[in-house]
């Protein structure tokens, strides 16, 4: 490549790189930097080295929030992705009115998280909510719960809006993966007598494992960065029963003005999410091979 061409490429790339560095890399650097300070955003920063991390690793609320985040992640991985794959497969087989259904399934993705959370609040409300009212009407009153507070249901209840809101997106990604499959392979399987279930489990899923891997990475990042649904539905309470890492970081940073500690939580979340995502990607790549 000529020097002149290289210069031209560099010139065109540089603005984007600078913008990326300014808007994406520098905030990450700043968060890492602040995590070494005791700082309330107003007073002068006091350098405390790794004290925020020491405190964090001894903080039972952090571990509770981490467990709750894993609960949320399990919901996304074990419920959302399989359901999204099933819906994508149904659309792929062009069931009746599949174009209409594709739009309907995607609608939750474009609904704002605040609206979604409020809708679920109306569903879960103890006395006037749709869910308990329905249970009472059909004679199952003994199954009514304080869904957002009962230790047995609280975390699952706050996970559902995220599943509902992201299902359509996962479905579209998986559908795109399915549409990239070679029809000849599927036809050959049919000729060999494979039924729909075997086709799905033995041919389709292995062939789109890369796309499933992408969905898993998206699910992991969603689980670790979620805080909006939690904030509106429960604010992490009661007694941190629904606290996730994202809401705990927000609460420490913005409610209690412990920016240093909040930054340490953010750095830890980032580290954990990156490690899990890399492991999942490596596993997915191995499956691909």
């Amino acid at each position, binding site marked *: 490549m000529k020097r*002149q061409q290289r210069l031209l490429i560099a*010139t065109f790339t540089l603005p984007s790189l600078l913008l990326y560095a300014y808007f994406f890399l520098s905030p990450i650097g700043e968060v890492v930097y602040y995590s070494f300070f005791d700082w309330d*955003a107003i*007073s002068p920063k006091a350098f405390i080295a790794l004290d925020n991390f020491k405190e964090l690793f001894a903080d039972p609320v952090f571990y509770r929030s981490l467990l709750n985040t894993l609960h949320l992640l399990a919901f996304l991985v074990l419920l959302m992705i399989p359901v999204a794959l099933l819906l994508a497969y149904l659309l792929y087989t062009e069931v009746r009115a599949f174009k209409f259904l594709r739009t309907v399934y995607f609608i939750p993705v474009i609904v704002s998280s605040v609206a979604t959370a409020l809708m679920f609040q109306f569903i879960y409300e*103890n006395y006037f909510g749709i869910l308990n009212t329905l249970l009472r009407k059909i004679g199952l009153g003994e199954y009514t719960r304080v869904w*957002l507070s009962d230790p047995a249901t609280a975390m699952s209840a706050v996970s559902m809006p995220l599943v509902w809101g992201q299902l359509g997106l996962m479905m579209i990604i998986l559908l795109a993966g399915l549409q990239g499959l070679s029809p000849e392979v599927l036809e050959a399987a049919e000729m060999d007598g494979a039924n729909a279930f075997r086709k799905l489990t033995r041919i389709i899923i292995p062939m789109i494992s890369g796309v499933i891997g992408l969905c898993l990475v998206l699910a992991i990042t969603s689980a670790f960065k979620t805080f909006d649904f939690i904030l509106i539905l*429960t604010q992490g309470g*009661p*007694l941190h029963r629904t606290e996730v890492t994202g809401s705990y970081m927000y609460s420490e940073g913005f409610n*209690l003005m412990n920016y240093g500690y909040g930054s340490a939580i953010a750095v830890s979340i980032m580290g954990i999410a990156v490690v899990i995502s890399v492991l999942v990607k490596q596993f997915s790549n191995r499956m691909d091979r």
Partner: protein
Amino acid sequence: MRKSTMKIGVMLASAMLLLAACSGNGNGNANGGNSSASPAGASSPAASSGTAQEGTAKQPVELTLAHGWTGEVAMAAAFEPAIDRFIASHDYITLNVETAPGNGIREKIVTEMAANDPPDVFLHWGARDTASYIANEKVADLTDLIAGDPELEGRYIDNAYDSVTYKGRIYGLPIEANMMNFLVNTKMFADAGIKVPETFDELKEAVKAFKAKGLIPIAANDGTTRAILSNLNDQLYGESVRDRLIGKEEYDERLVEAASHVRELVELGAFPEGMETLGTLQALELFNTGMSPMYYQHSWTLGSVAEDLFDQVEVVPFPKLKPDGDAYMTSGVGYFVYISERAYEDENKREAAWELAKYLAGTEVGKELEVVSGNPSPVVWDRSSDMHPMLAKAFKLRDSGEVKTFPDHNDLLSAEASKVYNDLKTRLYLNDITPEQYAQLFEEGIKNNPNPAFEP
């Protein structure tokens, strides 16, 4: 070579122009989503200057006001028109109004303080929430201005500056009073043949009787137990509870007693199931729909009591532990108008900011807040019959001499101790801790997190 260099140069210049066009202009009006308001004919500094010279002969000045009384917040109905009136009558002031509804103002102010770009005048809670701004000289000390201004003499109720006093200095003007009101639906009591409780024992009997009828005796949410704890401690300790809240004196077994009474009510089923998940107005809905005969909450909710209940709902003292003891009502001032230190240091801005602050925390706005928004004001005025009926009942009780008043306990705690307090009361009613543990942890919370406002 020369041609391609020129092309690159043109493209770079275009990119720079685009970036420059997209960026803000760097002045005070560059705040996205804010409304900038100035009087007609004074939208430009020149126009403003001209009007000022002809009219008031004051230097034109630009101020920023940040507040959270906007949108669906009840106070917006009185407060936002008041701002418009101020703008219309002060043609030398160009007022940029920035809003963040409700608690959003907290995040907005802290972000702007951290960026060293605070609004000139802003509304905020008391020194518990602004201690860090005060300690770092981000907000102005108004003590001398207040002392030297005859207009402010006798304007406010007693102790109106308490929650905004930090180490003996005053940092804000009071704009919103607060009370905790115990509401009873007298018709429901009469229909059930139950006496409106005056003592705690009668309250327990009423709770049992209503519970037996399948009702929720007290419409409550997470904050209600805190209100009950405060009231019981006021009754048990009297005025000396203040010294205990600020860590000057130690609590004793009476703190356990107060917590035990709350547990008694929980065990009797006085509160809605899952009250920790209910919002304040959701709890009020239980009262409004006749599912609950009693409600104990902040005075700002009075404006939301159902209109058809006005005749049958009374504001009564919270039941007394001892028949011959004193009844208490939580009453104080919790919201203030602040001036930033930066505006205070600018001589031109100081006068205008002080005028704006005095107007917002003044009699005219105070009256409107009570009459239009049903929200109590700390301003002393001759309350007339056009007052919101529920608010009128609350004031009548407060000023009757039938109850003693004491401020919200949260206002005397540091921000950290207040968080401990809020967590502990939730743990107490969810039976996560015993009353003894509650008392021990609460006292530790105060000792470990002293309120800097009361430090010498």
